[in-house]
């Protein structure tokens, strides 16, 4: 009797275990699941949007949750794709990943949905639409928000060096760096403060904050990859590598990782940094009394002409094919990124929507009046680029990063050779 009881108990346990490994419950076609980014401000925004939608929509309801915690949201999305547990709508997709997902057939093409084409042309200019159009001619992502990478600078330090304006080109930047270094050498002959800092890690995405925005600035927004070939084996990339290499060789930038200690910018250990508008919230909260800072465009070559582009760090919205009602998902997204809600996004998160004519839009006037530091970002938003619509971008950035370390940080390779080698390796990536 006791043995029979044990057998039954084990059988029940194993059955329960197997049942618990089963697939997720299917959602009804009038219910959507929306995953937002998991930072506090964006959760507030997502909550607001979902409440507003559910209050007014008769066609279907939306529930939301922040993207689950993980090492990176990209990793979580990948796991969800593999496990077929993707949400219907996801709003924090890195543009560089979209092409890989589109090729894997897990994304819905927006241009097949009613009302999308008219909308996208009213929101974005043609260069942005080109940027998000896949080589197969479809659009699998909606450009939603950007955080342009700009030069953050300490106003007092820059003024103290005799500059009325922040250094705008390589020559001015080098001159300011040299002057600042000379003022900050300790009794042992070591530099104790640097003019700037950029992460020296070879991690591929670190190049979003140094090489890539500088390359876009120098080249008027030229692509890295075009027609499945490296498009950066040119004088602009070489100039950027030379400029950065000079900063490290002369000790204007620290080779050491400074990120694990107190904020080096707010404690005036560095005078500048290449970063986005997210610094504002942080700086306003932690800056010492009297500390003044501002933003300017990325430094450009001395003979640069035309507008100064930068990397926009765009995050886009996608609909996964696990969605049973893509038209409803699109209607929800349409609501979420209308002009009024774009303003709400800026108000709640201090990020800008990727929308043309932002700076002159009367609806945003009050926001910019209340957030004057965002004006520079709004001006810059007219001249931002995301990433090129090609697969394997992680590896492209990794290849560049490897050459970057060898040439820029350690000066082991000439800039021309490093860029040429990187381009050669990228071309190999795309050989079918």
């Amino acid at each position, binding site marked *: 009797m006791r043995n029979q009881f044990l*057998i039954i108990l084990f059988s029940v346990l194993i059955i329960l275990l197997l049942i618990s490994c089963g697939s997720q419950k299917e959602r009804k076609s009038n219910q959507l699941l929306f995953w937002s980014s998991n930072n506090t401000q964006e959760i507030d925004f997502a909550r607001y949007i979902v409440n507003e939608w559910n209050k007014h929509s008769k066609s279907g309801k939306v529930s939301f949750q922040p993207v689950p915690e993980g090492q990176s949201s990209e990793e979580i999305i990948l796991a969800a794709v593999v496990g077929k547990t993707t949400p219907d709508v996801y709003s924090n997709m890195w543009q560089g990943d979209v092409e890989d997902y589109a090729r894997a057939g897990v994304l819905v093409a927006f241009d097949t949905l009613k009302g999308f084409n008219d909308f996208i042309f009213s929101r974005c200019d043609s260069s942005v639409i080109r940027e998000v159009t896949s080589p197969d001619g479809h659009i699998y992502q909606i450009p939603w928000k950007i955080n342009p990478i700009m030069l953050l600078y300490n106003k007092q330090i820059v003024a103290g060096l005799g500059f009325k304006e922040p250094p705008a080109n390589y020559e001015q930047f080098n001159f300011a760096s040299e002057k600042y270094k000379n003022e900050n050498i300790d009794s042992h002959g070591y530099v104790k403060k640097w003019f700037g800092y950029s992460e020296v890690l070879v991690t591929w995405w670190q190049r979003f904050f140094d090489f890539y925005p500088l390359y876009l600035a120098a080249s008027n927004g030229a692509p890295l990859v075009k027609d499945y070939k490296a498009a950066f084996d040119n004088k602009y990339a070489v100039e950027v590598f030379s400029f950065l290499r000079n900063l490290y060789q002369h000790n204007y930038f620290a080779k050491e990782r400074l990120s*694990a200690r107190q904020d080096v910018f707010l404690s005036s250990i560095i005078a500048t940094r290449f970063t986005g508008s997210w610094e504002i919230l942080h700086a306003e909260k932690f800056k010492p009394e009297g500390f003044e800072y501002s933003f300017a465009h990325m430094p450009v070559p001395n003979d640069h002409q035309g507008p100064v582009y930068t990397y926009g760090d765009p995050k886009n919205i996608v609909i996964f094919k696990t969605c049973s009602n893509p038209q409803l998902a699109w209607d929800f997204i349409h609501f979420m990124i209308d002009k009024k809600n774009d303003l709400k996004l800026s108000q709640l998160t201090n990020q800008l929507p990727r929308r043309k004519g932002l700076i002159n839009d009367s609806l945003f006037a009050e926001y910019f009046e209340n957030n004057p530091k965002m004006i520079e970002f709004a001006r810059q938003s007219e001249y931002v680029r995301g990433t090129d619509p090609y697969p394997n971008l992680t590896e492209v950035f990794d290849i560049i990063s490897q050459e970057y*370390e060898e040439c820029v940080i350690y000066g082991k390779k000439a800039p021309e050779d490093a860029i040429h080698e990187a381009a050669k390796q990228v071309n190999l990536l795309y050989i079918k």
Partner: protein
Amino acid sequence: MKTKKFIPYFLVAPYIFHFLLFVAFPVIFSIVLTFHQWNIISPMKYIGLANYTRLFQDKFFSQSLVNTLIFLIIHIPLQIIIALLLAETLNQKIKFRGFFRAAFFLPVIVSGVVVTILWQQLYGFDTGLFNKILTAIGLGRIGWLVDPSWAMPSIAIMATWKNVGLYIILFLVGLQTVPVHYYEAADLEGATHWQKFFKITLPMINPTIFMVVVLSTIGGFSLFIEPYVMTGGGPLNSTLSAVLYIYKQGFFYYHMGYSATLGLFFALLILSVVAIQKKFIEKDK
């Protein structure tokens, strides 16, 4: 009676289930993967032996193996010498012996990530404690983590500090098994402290030394957290360990097939090294 026959099978069923799901299946699956190209989201593509061909031409993988070897060459002798000396000291009747034993063991139970972040600060070129001391005594600063020739030795020193406590305990156990009358006899013969150490202690704890070598070899081969947190494999890939490279191939670039190939090759390499060490132990016995 019939039911009774099945009882043992039911009792081991959870373990068998766990073994099949989490050990046997992953091993078989990763062997299958080595013949495929797979980025997780697209279907697997059979590519024959291409991953193996790539492995033997991959300069980063060979560099990662050399880096791991450098780490082992520094780490293992350093660890054994320090652990043995400290164990020998802690085996004497010194004051606060219990406190020191606990203190040396403490780093072993602290999280690896915490330790690496702490040492990153100590190794700082401009503000790190070690360089402050060097400049205070009139010496030049060392690029502990930014100089490619120093980065791996620096990691090896830190790993030794972190793990030495465990090996002190193992050596202490070994030392306490040495019969006291051997030392008494040596004392009667007028042997010095070092003579006793080399002629009695070392031969008697030989099995412990070999065990420590095997354990630190396996531990050294799996070097990951330290370079991952401190240097990301840099500078100039000088701290790119084999495991870190396998991880990067798998989870940075999603080259699952290639990553599995590297993993399999590396597992066989560790197996061979441990087999050689085992042979030495048996020969010694």
